[in-house]
Protein backbone atom coordinates (compact mmCIF):
# COMPACT_ATOMS: atom_id res chain seq x y z
CA UNK A 1 0.00 0.00 0.00
CA UNK A 2 1.33 3.38 -0.93
CA UNK A 3 2.00 5.29 2.26
CA UNK A 4 1.49 8.87 1.20
CA UNK A 5 -1.05 10.38 -1.21
CA UNK A 6 0.35 12.41 -4.05
CA UNK A 7 1.00 16.05 -3.22
CA UNK A 8 -1.64 17.26 -5.71
CA UNK A 9 -4.39 15.74 -3.68
CA UNK A 10 -3.73 17.33 -0.33
CA UNK A 11 -6.29 19.53 1.34
CA UNK A 12 -9.31 19.01 -0.89
CA UNK A 13 -7.80 21.03 -3.70
CA UNK A 14 -6.39 18.34 -5.92
CA UNK A 15 -4.38 20.23 -8.49
CA UNK A 16 -1.47 22.60 -7.94
CA UNK A 17 -1.64 26.20 -9.20
CA UNK A 18 0.49 25.30 -12.21
CA UNK A 19 -1.70 22.33 -13.14
CA UNK A 20 -4.85 24.41 -12.65
CA UNK A 21 -3.54 27.15 -14.88
CA UNK A 22 -2.60 24.59 -17.52
CA UNK A 23 -6.16 23.26 -17.41
CA UNK A 24 -7.59 26.76 -17.73
CA UNK A 25 -5.12 27.91 -20.39
CA UNK A 26 -7.07 26.85 -23.51
CA UNK A 27 -10.12 28.68 -22.21
CA UNK A 28 -8.11 31.80 -21.41
CA UNK A 29 -6.56 31.89 -24.89
CA UNK A 30 -9.92 31.40 -26.60
CA UNK A 31 -11.66 33.93 -24.36
CA UNK A 32 -8.95 36.44 -25.18
CA UNK A 33 -9.21 36.03 -28.96
CA UNK A 34 -13.00 35.76 -29.24
CA UNK A 35 -14.22 37.90 -26.34
CA UNK A 36 -11.79 40.30 -24.70
CA UNK A 37 -9.85 41.32 -27.81
CA UNK A 38 -12.97 41.94 -29.99
CA UNK A 39 -14.83 43.92 -27.33
CA UNK A 40 -11.66 45.79 -26.46
CA UNK A 41 -10.99 46.67 -30.10
CA UNK A 42 -14.55 47.87 -30.60
CA UNK A 43 -14.42 50.09 -27.51
CA UNK A 44 -11.02 51.34 -28.66
CA UNK A 45 -12.59 52.35 -32.00
CA UNK A 46 -15.27 54.25 -30.13
CA UNK A 47 -12.85 56.18 -27.90
CA UNK A 48 -9.66 56.75 -29.88
CA UNK A 49 -10.54 57.09 -33.54
CA UNK A 50 -9.32 59.23 -35.12
CA UNK A 51 -8.14 60.91 -31.89
CA UNK A 52 -9.13 60.40 -28.25
CA UNK A 53 -12.72 61.65 -28.10
CA UNK A 54 -16.04 61.19 -26.36
CA UNK A 55 -17.93 62.68 -29.31
CA UNK A 56 -19.38 59.33 -30.38
CA UNK A 57 -20.76 58.69 -26.91
CA UNK A 58 -22.17 62.19 -26.74
CA UNK A 59 -23.95 61.62 -30.04
CA UNK A 60 -25.28 58.26 -28.87
CA UNK A 61 -26.94 59.63 -25.75
CA UNK A 62 -28.01 63.10 -26.89
CA UNK A 63 -29.10 63.01 -30.54
CA UNK A 64 -32.91 62.74 -30.42
CA UNK A 65 -33.11 60.10 -33.15
CA UNK A 66 -30.84 57.73 -31.21
CA UNK A 67 -32.25 58.68 -27.84
CA UNK A 68 -35.67 57.61 -29.13
CA UNK A 69 -34.29 54.21 -30.08
CA UNK A 70 -32.71 53.78 -26.65
CA UNK A 71 -35.85 54.81 -24.81
CA UNK A 72 -37.94 52.48 -27.00
CA UNK A 73 -35.52 49.65 -26.21
CA UNK A 74 -35.77 50.32 -22.48
CA UNK A 75 -39.57 50.58 -22.66
CA UNK A 76 -40.01 47.37 -24.65
CA UNK A 77 -37.56 45.51 -22.39
CA UNK A 78 -39.48 46.69 -19.31
CA UNK A 79 -42.90 45.75 -20.76
CA UNK A 80 -41.59 42.33 -21.82
CA UNK A 81 -40.14 41.76 -18.34
CA UNK A 82 -43.42 42.60 -16.59
CA UNK A 83 -45.49 40.56 -19.03
CA UNK A 84 -43.16 37.57 -18.71
CA UNK A 85 -43.35 37.83 -14.91
CA UNK A 86 -47.15 37.85 -14.94
CA UNK A 87 -47.27 34.80 -17.23
CA UNK A 88 -44.42 32.93 -15.58
CA UNK A 89 -45.41 33.13 -11.91
CA UNK A 90 -48.63 31.06 -12.08
CA UNK A 91 -46.98 28.48 -14.32
CA UNK A 92 -43.97 28.22 -11.98
CA UNK A 93 -46.27 27.76 -8.99
CA UNK A 94 -48.27 25.00 -10.66
CA UNK A 95 -45.00 23.35 -11.73
CA UNK A 96 -43.67 23.50 -8.17
CA UNK A 97 -46.83 21.79 -6.91
CA UNK A 98 -46.82 19.07 -9.57
CA UNK A 99 -45.16 15.70 -9.66
CA UNK A 100 -44.74 12.81 -12.08
CA UNK A 101 -46.14 13.00 -15.59
CA UNK A 102 -47.84 16.36 -15.04
CA UNK A 103 -44.54 17.90 -13.98
CA UNK A 104 -42.73 16.29 -16.89
CA UNK A 105 -45.22 17.77 -19.38
CA UNK A 106 -44.96 21.23 -17.83
CA UNK A 107 -41.15 21.12 -17.72
CA UNK A 108 -41.01 19.94 -21.34
CA UNK A 109 -43.29 22.79 -22.42
CA UNK A 110 -40.81 25.26 -20.92
CA UNK A 111 -37.60 23.56 -22.06
CA UNK A 112 -38.65 22.83 -25.63
CA UNK A 113 -39.13 26.50 -26.51
CA UNK A 114 -36.04 27.47 -24.50
CA UNK A 115 -33.82 25.26 -26.63
CA UNK A 116 -35.64 25.74 -29.94
CA UNK A 117 -33.88 28.13 -32.25
CA UNK A 118 -34.84 31.76 -31.71
CA UNK A 119 -35.12 32.06 -35.48
CA UNK A 120 -37.62 29.21 -35.64
CA UNK A 121 -39.76 30.82 -32.95
CA UNK A 122 -39.52 34.25 -34.57
CA UNK A 123 -40.48 32.76 -37.92
CA UNK A 124 -43.43 31.02 -36.28
CA UNK A 125 -44.68 34.33 -34.90
CA UNK A 126 -44.30 35.97 -38.31
CA UNK A 127 -46.43 33.22 -39.84
CA UNK A 128 -49.03 33.56 -37.08
CA UNK A 129 -49.17 37.36 -37.13
CA UNK A 130 -49.00 38.12 -40.85
CA UNK A 131 -51.91 39.69 -42.72
CA UNK A 132 -53.45 36.38 -43.86
CA UNK A 133 -51.92 34.50 -40.95
CA UNK A 134 -53.53 32.13 -38.49
CA UNK A 135 -54.47 34.75 -35.90
CA UNK A 136 -56.15 37.03 -38.43
CA UNK A 137 -57.99 34.05 -39.94
CA UNK A 138 -59.29 33.12 -36.50
CA UNK A 139 -60.31 36.67 -35.70
CA UNK A 140 -62.21 36.97 -38.99
CA UNK A 141 -63.85 33.56 -38.65
CA UNK A 142 -65.06 34.43 -35.16
CA UNK A 143 -66.54 37.67 -36.50
CA UNK A 144 -64.54 39.85 -34.13
CA UNK A 145 -63.05 41.84 -36.99
CA UNK A 146 -64.19 42.42 -40.57
CA UNK A 147 -60.82 42.83 -42.22
CA UNK A 148 -57.38 41.51 -41.27
CA UNK A 149 -55.58 43.59 -38.66
CA UNK A 150 -52.08 44.86 -39.16
CA UNK A 151 -50.28 42.82 -36.52
CA UNK A 152 -46.81 42.28 -37.92
CA UNK A 153 -44.36 45.21 -37.75
CA UNK A 154 -46.05 46.71 -34.70
CA UNK A 155 -44.74 47.21 -31.19
CA UNK A 156 -47.42 44.84 -29.89
CA UNK A 157 -46.09 42.09 -32.15
CA UNK A 158 -42.54 42.71 -30.93
CA UNK A 159 -43.69 42.56 -27.31
CA UNK A 160 -45.68 39.33 -27.82
CA UNK A 161 -42.89 37.53 -29.67
CA UNK A 162 -40.15 38.70 -27.30
CA UNK A 163 -42.18 37.71 -24.24
CA UNK A 164 -42.65 34.29 -25.79
CA UNK A 165 -38.96 33.84 -26.53
CA UNK A 166 -37.82 35.07 -23.09
CA UNK A 167 -40.56 33.48 -20.96
CA UNK A 168 -38.54 30.32 -20.09
CA UNK A 169 -35.82 32.54 -18.61
CA UNK A 170 -38.45 33.81 -16.17
CA UNK A 171 -40.19 30.52 -15.43
CA UNK A 172 -37.10 28.48 -14.51
CA UNK A 173 -35.61 30.70 -11.77
CA UNK A 174 -39.03 31.24 -10.13
CA UNK A 175 -39.78 27.52 -10.34
CA UNK A 176 -36.43 26.69 -8.77
CA UNK A 177 -37.04 29.20 -5.94
CA UNK A 178 -40.57 27.86 -5.28
CA UNK A 179 -39.34 24.30 -5.42
CA UNK A 180 -36.82 25.11 -2.72
CA UNK A 181 -39.49 26.11 -0.17
CA UNK A 182 -40.10 23.16 2.18
CA UNK A 183 -43.73 22.02 2.43
CA UNK A 184 -43.46 22.34 6.22
CA UNK A 185 -43.50 26.12 5.97
CA UNK A 186 -46.99 26.41 4.55
CA UNK A 187 -48.22 23.56 6.76
CA UNK A 188 -46.84 25.37 9.80
CA UNK A 189 -48.47 28.64 8.74
CA UNK A 190 -51.83 26.95 8.27
CA UNK A 191 -51.61 25.14 11.59
CA UNK A 192 -51.07 28.52 13.21
CA UNK A 193 -54.34 29.61 11.67
CA UNK A 194 -53.27 31.37 8.47
CA UNK A 195 -55.67 31.12 5.55
CA UNK A 196 -54.39 29.80 2.26
CA UNK A 197 -54.26 33.32 0.88
CA UNK A 198 -52.38 34.60 3.94
CA UNK A 199 -49.90 31.71 3.65
CA UNK A 200 -49.35 32.62 0.04
CA UNK A 201 -48.94 36.33 0.76
CA UNK A 202 -46.76 36.04 3.86
CA UNK A 203 -44.75 32.89 3.19
CA UNK A 204 -44.70 31.61 -0.38
CA UNK A 205 -44.53 34.89 -2.27
CA UNK A 206 -41.70 36.47 -0.23
CA UNK A 207 -39.66 33.28 -0.47
CA UNK A 208 -40.04 33.24 -4.27
CA UNK A 209 -38.57 36.74 -4.59
CA UNK A 210 -34.94 35.65 -5.21
CA UNK A 211 -36.21 33.70 -8.22
CA UNK A 212 -38.28 36.67 -9.35
CA UNK A 213 -35.24 39.00 -9.17
CA UNK A 214 -33.12 36.52 -11.05
CA UNK A 215 -35.75 35.98 -13.75
CA UNK A 216 -36.51 39.68 -14.20
CA UNK A 217 -32.83 40.48 -14.49
CA UNK A 218 -32.15 37.77 -17.07
CA UNK A 219 -35.19 38.71 -19.16
CA UNK A 220 -34.47 42.44 -18.99
CA UNK A 221 -30.79 42.00 -19.90
CA UNK A 222 -31.54 39.66 -22.78
CA UNK A 223 -34.37 41.88 -24.03
CA UNK A 224 -32.09 44.94 -24.14
CA UNK A 225 -29.73 43.30 -26.59
CA UNK A 226 -32.24 41.32 -28.61
CA UNK A 227 -31.55 41.38 -32.31
CA UNK A 228 -33.28 38.66 -34.35
CA UNK A 229 -36.85 39.02 -33.08
CA UNK A 230 -37.22 42.82 -33.10
CA UNK A 231 -35.36 43.11 -36.42
CA UNK A 232 -37.70 40.66 -38.17
CA UNK A 233 -41.00 41.28 -36.35
CA UNK A 234 -40.69 45.00 -35.64
CA UNK A 235 -39.42 46.22 -38.97
CA UNK A 236 -37.67 49.58 -39.35
CA UNK A 237 -40.37 51.56 -37.53
CA UNK A 238 -39.85 49.67 -34.29
CA UNK A 239 -36.07 49.80 -34.34
CA UNK A 240 -34.35 48.73 -31.13
CA UNK A 241 -30.76 49.37 -30.15
CA UNK A 242 -29.40 46.06 -31.52
CA UNK A 243 -30.80 46.80 -34.97
CA UNK A 244 -29.31 50.30 -34.76
CA UNK A 245 -25.87 48.83 -33.98
CA UNK A 246 -26.19 46.43 -36.90
CA UNK A 247 -27.26 49.24 -39.23
CA UNK A 248 -24.31 51.43 -38.21
CA UNK A 249 -21.88 48.62 -38.99
CA UNK A 250 -23.43 47.16 -42.11
CA UNK A 251 -24.89 50.20 -43.83
CA UNK A 252 -23.12 53.27 -42.44
CA UNK A 253 -19.78 51.52 -41.82
CA UNK A 254 -19.50 53.78 -38.78
CA UNK A 255 -17.54 51.56 -36.43
CA UNK A 256 -16.80 54.29 -33.92
CA UNK A 257 -20.45 55.11 -33.41
CA UNK A 258 -21.44 51.43 -33.30
CA UNK A 259 -18.68 51.01 -30.72
CA UNK A 260 -20.08 53.84 -28.65
CA UNK A 261 -23.57 52.29 -28.75
CA UNK A 262 -22.09 48.97 -27.67
CA UNK A 263 -20.15 50.81 -24.94
CA UNK A 264 -23.36 52.31 -23.56
CA UNK A 265 -25.06 48.91 -23.70
CA UNK A 266 -22.15 47.18 -21.97
CA UNK A 267 -21.97 49.79 -19.23
CA UNK A 268 -25.67 49.31 -18.55
CA UNK A 269 -25.54 45.54 -18.64
CA UNK A 270 -22.42 45.31 -16.46
CA UNK A 271 -23.86 47.72 -13.92
CA UNK A 272 -27.03 45.64 -13.59
CA UNK A 273 -25.07 42.39 -13.48
CA UNK A 274 -22.79 43.72 -10.73
CA UNK A 275 -25.69 45.06 -8.65
CA UNK A 276 -27.53 41.76 -8.92
CA UNK A 277 -24.42 39.61 -9.04
CA UNK A 278 -25.99 36.77 -7.13
CA UNK A 279 -29.09 36.76 -9.29
CA UNK A 280 -27.21 35.90 -12.48
CA UNK A 281 -27.21 32.14 -12.16
CA UNK A 282 -26.72 30.02 -15.21
CA UNK A 283 -26.98 26.73 -13.34
CA UNK A 284 -30.76 27.14 -13.24
CA UNK A 285 -30.98 26.68 -16.98
CA UNK A 286 -28.53 23.88 -17.55
CA UNK A 287 -29.40 22.08 -14.33
CA UNK A 288 -33.10 21.86 -15.05
CA UNK A 289 -33.08 19.74 -18.18
Amino acid at each position, binding site marked *: *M*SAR*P*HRWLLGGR*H*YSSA*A*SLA*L*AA*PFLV*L*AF*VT*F*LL*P*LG*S*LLHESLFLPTPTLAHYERAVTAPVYLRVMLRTLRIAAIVTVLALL*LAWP*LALVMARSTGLKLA*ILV*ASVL*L*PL*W*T*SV*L*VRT*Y*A*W*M*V*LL*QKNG*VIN*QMLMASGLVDEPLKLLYTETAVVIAMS*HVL*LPFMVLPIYSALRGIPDDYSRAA*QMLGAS*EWATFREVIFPLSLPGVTSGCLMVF*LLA*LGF*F*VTPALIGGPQQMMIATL*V*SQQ*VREMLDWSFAGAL*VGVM*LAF*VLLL*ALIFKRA*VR*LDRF*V*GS*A
Partner: protein
Amino acid sequence: MSAPRRAGSPRHAGRAMLGATAYAVTIFLLLPTLVIAPMSVGPERYLRFPPNGFSLRWYAEYFADSDWVNATLFSLEAGVIATLAATVIGTMLALALVRGRLPGKGLIELLVIGPVIVPHIALAVAMFLVFEQLRLTGTLLGFAMAHTILALPFVVFTVLAALYRFDADLERAAVSCGASPLRTFRHVTLPLIAPGVVSAALFAFIISFDEAVVSFFISNLDRKTLPRKMFEDIDYNISPTLAAVATMLTLLTVAALVGSHLVRSRLDARTRSAEP
Protein backbone atom coordinates in the same frame (compact mmCIF):
# COMPACT_ATOMS: atom_id res chain seq x y z
CA MET B 1 -59.37 19.93 11.46
CA SER B 2 -59.49 21.68 8.13
CA ALA B 3 -62.86 22.22 6.52
CA PRO B 4 -63.75 19.68 3.86
CA ARG B 5 -62.95 20.92 0.39
CA ARG B 6 -66.10 21.70 -1.55
CA ALA B 7 -66.39 22.38 -5.24
CA GLY B 8 -67.46 25.97 -5.69
CA SER B 9 -65.71 27.20 -2.56
CA PRO B 10 -63.44 30.24 -3.00
CA ARG B 11 -60.37 28.09 -2.42
CA HIS B 12 -61.43 25.70 -5.12
CA ALA B 13 -62.13 28.53 -7.55
CA GLY B 14 -58.71 30.05 -6.86
CA ARG B 15 -56.96 26.77 -7.56
CA ALA B 16 -58.94 26.19 -10.73
CA MET B 17 -58.05 29.67 -11.95
CA LEU B 18 -54.38 29.16 -11.18
CA GLY B 19 -54.39 25.84 -13.04
CA ALA B 20 -56.21 27.32 -16.02
CA THR B 21 -53.75 30.23 -16.23
CA ALA B 22 -50.79 27.87 -16.06
CA TYR B 23 -52.13 25.70 -18.85
CA ALA B 24 -52.96 28.71 -20.99
CA VAL B 25 -49.34 29.85 -20.61
CA THR B 26 -48.16 26.35 -21.58
CA ILE B 27 -50.21 26.54 -24.75
CA PHE B 28 -48.83 30.01 -25.47
CA LEU B 29 -45.32 28.56 -25.08
CA LEU B 30 -45.80 25.54 -27.30
CA LEU B 31 -48.28 26.70 -29.92
CA PRO B 32 -46.15 28.83 -32.25
CA THR B 33 -43.55 26.10 -32.70
CA LEU B 34 -46.12 23.33 -33.03
CA VAL B 35 -48.29 25.16 -35.54
CA ILE B 36 -45.42 25.28 -38.01
CA ALA B 37 -45.05 21.50 -38.34
CA PRO B 38 -48.53 20.81 -39.81
CA MET B 39 -48.24 23.86 -42.04
CA SER B 40 -44.94 22.59 -43.46
CA VAL B 41 -46.64 19.55 -44.99
CA GLY B 42 -49.29 21.54 -46.82
CA PRO B 43 -49.19 21.23 -50.62
CA GLU B 44 -49.77 24.90 -51.41
CA ARG B 45 -47.37 27.78 -52.03
CA TYR B 46 -49.03 29.68 -49.20
CA LEU B 47 -48.88 28.56 -45.62
CA ARG B 48 -52.29 27.52 -44.44
CA PHE B 49 -53.54 26.25 -41.12
CA PRO B 50 -54.89 23.65 -41.04
CA PRO B 51 -53.21 22.46 -44.27
CA ASN B 52 -55.57 21.19 -46.96
CA GLY B 53 -53.66 18.09 -47.89
CA PHE B 54 -50.42 16.33 -47.23
CA SER B 55 -47.26 16.76 -49.24
CA LEU B 56 -43.56 16.54 -48.58
CA ARG B 57 -42.85 18.84 -51.49
CA TRP B 58 -41.28 21.59 -49.35
CA TYR B 59 -38.97 19.08 -47.72
CA ALA B 60 -37.98 17.83 -51.18
CA GLU B 61 -37.40 21.44 -52.21
CA TYR B 62 -35.04 21.90 -49.28
CA PHE B 63 -32.99 18.80 -50.16
CA ALA B 64 -32.86 19.78 -53.82
CA ASP B 65 -31.56 23.29 -53.12
CA SER B 66 -27.77 23.23 -52.89
CA ASP B 67 -27.80 26.55 -51.00
CA TRP B 68 -29.82 25.01 -48.16
CA VAL B 69 -27.87 21.77 -48.17
CA ASN B 70 -24.49 23.52 -48.19
CA ALA B 71 -25.53 25.81 -45.35
CA THR B 72 -26.70 22.78 -43.37
CA LEU B 73 -23.48 20.86 -43.96
CA PHE B 74 -21.44 23.90 -42.99
CA SER B 75 -23.50 24.28 -39.81
CA LEU B 76 -22.91 20.62 -39.02
CA GLU B 77 -19.15 20.94 -39.52
CA ALA B 78 -18.91 24.07 -37.37
CA GLY B 79 -21.25 22.50 -34.81
CA VAL B 80 -19.23 19.30 -34.46
CA ILE B 81 -15.92 21.14 -34.10
CA ALA B 82 -17.39 23.68 -31.66
CA THR B 83 -18.98 20.87 -29.65
CA LEU B 84 -15.73 18.95 -29.33
CA ALA B 85 -13.72 22.07 -28.52
CA ALA B 86 -16.23 23.47 -26.02
CA THR B 87 -16.62 20.10 -24.29
CA VAL B 88 -12.89 19.49 -23.88
CA ILE B 89 -11.97 23.08 -22.98
CA GLY B 90 -15.00 23.46 -20.70
CA THR B 91 -14.38 20.20 -18.85
CA MET B 92 -10.74 21.14 -18.27
CA LEU B 93 -11.78 24.53 -16.94
CA ALA B 94 -14.47 23.04 -14.70
CA LEU B 95 -11.88 20.68 -13.20
CA ALA B 96 -9.53 23.58 -12.56
CA LEU B 97 -12.35 25.60 -10.95
CA VAL B 98 -13.48 22.83 -8.60
CA ARG B 99 -10.40 20.78 -7.90
CA GLY B 100 -7.62 23.26 -8.53
CA ARG B 101 -6.02 26.33 -7.01
CA LEU B 102 -6.73 28.88 -9.68
CA PRO B 103 -5.35 32.38 -9.21
CA GLY B 104 -7.98 35.00 -10.07
CA LYS B 105 -10.82 32.50 -9.86
CA GLY B 106 -13.48 35.18 -9.50
CA LEU B 107 -12.32 36.96 -12.65
CA ILE B 108 -12.26 33.70 -14.60
CA GLU B 109 -15.80 32.91 -13.48
CA LEU B 110 -16.87 36.35 -14.67
CA LEU B 111 -15.17 35.65 -18.00
CA VAL B 112 -17.04 32.35 -18.31
CA ILE B 113 -20.45 33.92 -17.85
CA GLY B 114 -19.49 36.95 -19.96
CA PRO B 115 -20.69 35.61 -23.33
CA VAL B 116 -24.14 34.97 -21.82
CA ILE B 117 -24.56 38.38 -20.24
CA VAL B 118 -23.01 40.53 -22.97
CA PRO B 119 -25.65 41.10 -25.66
CA HIS B 120 -24.96 38.90 -28.65
CA ILE B 121 -25.21 41.83 -31.01
CA ALA B 122 -22.28 43.48 -29.20
CA LEU B 123 -20.22 40.30 -29.42
CA ALA B 124 -21.22 39.75 -33.03
CA VAL B 125 -20.14 43.21 -34.18
CA ALA B 126 -16.95 43.06 -32.12
CA MET B 127 -16.01 39.64 -33.51
CA PHE B 128 -16.73 40.87 -37.03
CA LEU B 129 -14.25 43.72 -36.48
CA VAL B 130 -11.42 41.49 -35.24
CA PHE B 131 -12.15 38.43 -37.38
CA GLU B 132 -12.02 40.57 -40.51
CA GLN B 133 -8.46 41.62 -39.62
CA LEU B 134 -7.47 38.06 -38.75
CA ARG B 135 -9.05 36.79 -42.01
CA LEU B 136 -11.39 34.55 -40.03
CA THR B 137 -14.72 35.76 -41.43
CA GLY B 138 -16.42 33.14 -43.56
CA THR B 139 -14.00 30.43 -42.40
CA LEU B 140 -14.75 27.20 -40.61
CA LEU B 141 -12.19 28.08 -37.95
CA GLY B 142 -13.84 31.45 -37.34
CA PHE B 143 -17.30 29.92 -36.87
CA ALA B 144 -15.94 27.12 -34.72
CA MET B 145 -14.14 29.60 -32.45
CA ALA B 146 -17.16 31.90 -32.13
CA HIS B 147 -19.55 29.04 -31.41
CA THR B 148 -17.14 27.49 -28.92
CA ILE B 149 -16.99 30.60 -26.74
CA LEU B 150 -20.78 30.92 -26.86
CA ALA B 151 -21.33 27.28 -25.86
CA LEU B 152 -18.63 27.20 -23.18
CA PRO B 153 -20.65 28.72 -20.31
CA PHE B 154 -23.25 25.97 -20.64
CA VAL B 155 -20.61 23.24 -20.77
CA VAL B 156 -18.74 24.61 -17.76
CA PHE B 157 -21.90 24.83 -15.65
CA THR B 158 -23.13 21.37 -16.64
CA VAL B 159 -19.77 19.75 -15.84
CA LEU B 160 -19.44 21.74 -12.61
CA ALA B 161 -22.80 20.37 -11.53
CA ALA B 162 -21.66 16.83 -12.35
CA LEU B 163 -18.41 17.35 -10.40
CA TYR B 164 -20.26 18.65 -7.35
CA ARG B 165 -22.55 15.64 -7.41
CA PHE B 166 -20.03 13.00 -6.55
CA ASP B 167 -17.83 12.57 -3.54
CA ALA B 168 -14.25 13.77 -3.98
CA ASP B 169 -13.24 11.05 -1.51
CA LEU B 170 -13.53 8.58 -4.36
CA GLU B 171 -10.68 10.40 -6.09
CA ARG B 172 -8.74 10.60 -2.85
CA ALA B 173 -9.16 6.87 -2.39
CA ALA B 174 -7.80 6.17 -5.87
CA VAL B 175 -4.79 8.34 -5.19
CA SER B 176 -4.06 6.83 -1.81
CA CYS B 177 -4.00 3.48 -3.58
CA GLY B 178 -1.19 4.87 -5.70
CA ALA B 179 -2.94 6.08 -8.86
CA SER B 180 -1.40 9.01 -10.74
CA PRO B 181 -3.49 12.16 -11.36
CA LEU B 182 -4.05 11.18 -15.00
CA ARG B 183 -4.98 7.61 -14.09
CA THR B 184 -7.36 8.85 -11.40
CA PHE B 185 -9.01 11.15 -13.88
CA ARG B 186 -9.38 8.42 -16.51
CA HIS B 187 -10.59 5.64 -14.26
CA VAL B 188 -12.50 7.47 -11.51
CA THR B 189 -13.40 11.06 -12.35
CA LEU B 190 -14.22 10.76 -16.04
CA PRO B 191 -16.53 7.74 -15.77
CA LEU B 192 -18.44 9.46 -12.95
CA ILE B 193 -18.91 12.75 -14.80
CA ALA B 194 -19.30 11.16 -18.25
CA PRO B 195 -23.10 11.59 -18.41
CA GLY B 196 -22.68 15.26 -17.46
CA VAL B 197 -20.05 15.70 -20.15
CA VAL B 198 -22.24 14.05 -22.81
CA SER B 199 -25.19 16.19 -21.79
CA ALA B 200 -22.95 19.29 -21.92
CA ALA B 201 -21.84 18.30 -25.43
CA LEU B 202 -25.47 18.06 -26.58
CA PHE B 203 -26.21 21.54 -25.23
CA ALA B 204 -23.09 22.86 -26.96
CA PHE B 205 -24.24 21.37 -30.24
CA ILE B 206 -27.73 22.89 -30.01
CA ILE B 207 -26.25 26.29 -29.18
CA SER B 208 -23.85 26.17 -32.10
CA PHE B 209 -26.41 24.83 -34.53
CA ASP B 210 -29.00 27.48 -33.60
CA GLU B 211 -26.71 30.46 -33.23
CA ALA B 212 -27.87 33.23 -35.54
CA VAL B 213 -26.64 36.65 -34.48
CA VAL B 214 -22.88 36.13 -34.52
CA SER B 215 -23.18 34.00 -37.68
CA PHE B 216 -25.07 36.84 -39.32
CA PHE B 217 -21.97 39.01 -38.99
CA ILE B 218 -19.03 36.67 -39.44
CA SER B 219 -20.28 34.81 -42.52
CA ASN B 220 -19.66 35.84 -46.10
CA LEU B 221 -21.49 35.15 -49.33
CA ASP B 222 -20.34 31.59 -49.90
CA ARG B 223 -19.80 30.33 -46.34
CA LYS B 224 -22.85 30.63 -44.18
CA THR B 225 -24.59 28.57 -41.55
CA LEU B 226 -28.18 27.35 -41.67
CA PRO B 227 -29.56 30.03 -39.31
CA ARG B 228 -27.82 32.72 -41.34
CA LYS B 229 -29.44 31.37 -44.51
CA MET B 230 -32.80 31.25 -42.73
CA PHE B 231 -32.36 34.83 -41.56
CA GLU B 232 -31.77 36.00 -45.14
CA ASP B 233 -34.74 34.08 -46.51
CA ILE B 234 -37.20 35.16 -43.82
CA ASP B 235 -36.51 38.75 -44.79
CA TYR B 236 -37.68 38.13 -48.36
CA ASN B 237 -40.55 35.71 -48.08
CA ILE B 238 -42.19 33.47 -45.54
CA SER B 239 -41.97 30.42 -47.81
CA PRO B 240 -43.13 26.91 -46.90
CA THR B 241 -39.54 25.66 -47.36
CA LEU B 242 -38.67 27.68 -44.27
CA ALA B 243 -41.48 25.93 -42.41
CA ALA B 244 -39.92 22.60 -43.39
CA VAL B 245 -36.48 23.76 -42.19
CA ALA B 246 -37.97 25.09 -38.95
CA THR B 247 -39.74 21.78 -38.34
CA MET B 248 -36.56 19.77 -38.91
CA LEU B 249 -34.63 22.07 -36.56
CA THR B 250 -37.30 21.64 -33.90
CA LEU B 251 -37.17 17.84 -34.26
CA LEU B 252 -33.39 17.97 -33.89
CA THR B 253 -33.78 19.99 -30.68
CA VAL B 254 -36.33 17.51 -29.32
CA ALA B 255 -33.95 14.64 -30.07
CA ALA B 256 -31.06 16.40 -28.31
CA LEU B 257 -33.21 17.25 -25.27
CA VAL B 258 -34.52 13.69 -24.96
CA GLY B 259 -30.95 12.38 -25.32
CA SER B 260 -29.74 14.77 -22.64
CA HIS B 261 -32.58 13.73 -20.34
CA LEU B 262 -31.80 10.02 -20.76
CA VAL B 263 -28.11 10.62 -20.08
CA ARG B 264 -28.96 12.67 -17.02
CA SER B 265 -31.22 10.05 -15.47
CA ARG B 266 -28.34 7.64 -15.90
CA LEU B 267 -26.12 10.09 -14.08
CA ASP B 268 -28.59 10.16 -11.19
CA ALA B 269 -28.73 6.37 -11.03
CA ARG B 270 -24.96 6.16 -11.12
CA THR B 271 -24.24 8.72 -8.41
CA ARG B 272 -26.85 7.05 -6.22
CA SER B 273 -25.17 3.68 -6.59
CA ALA B 274 -21.78 5.29 -5.94
CA GLU B 275 -22.96 6.54 -2.57
CA PRO B 276 -21.78 4.51 0.40
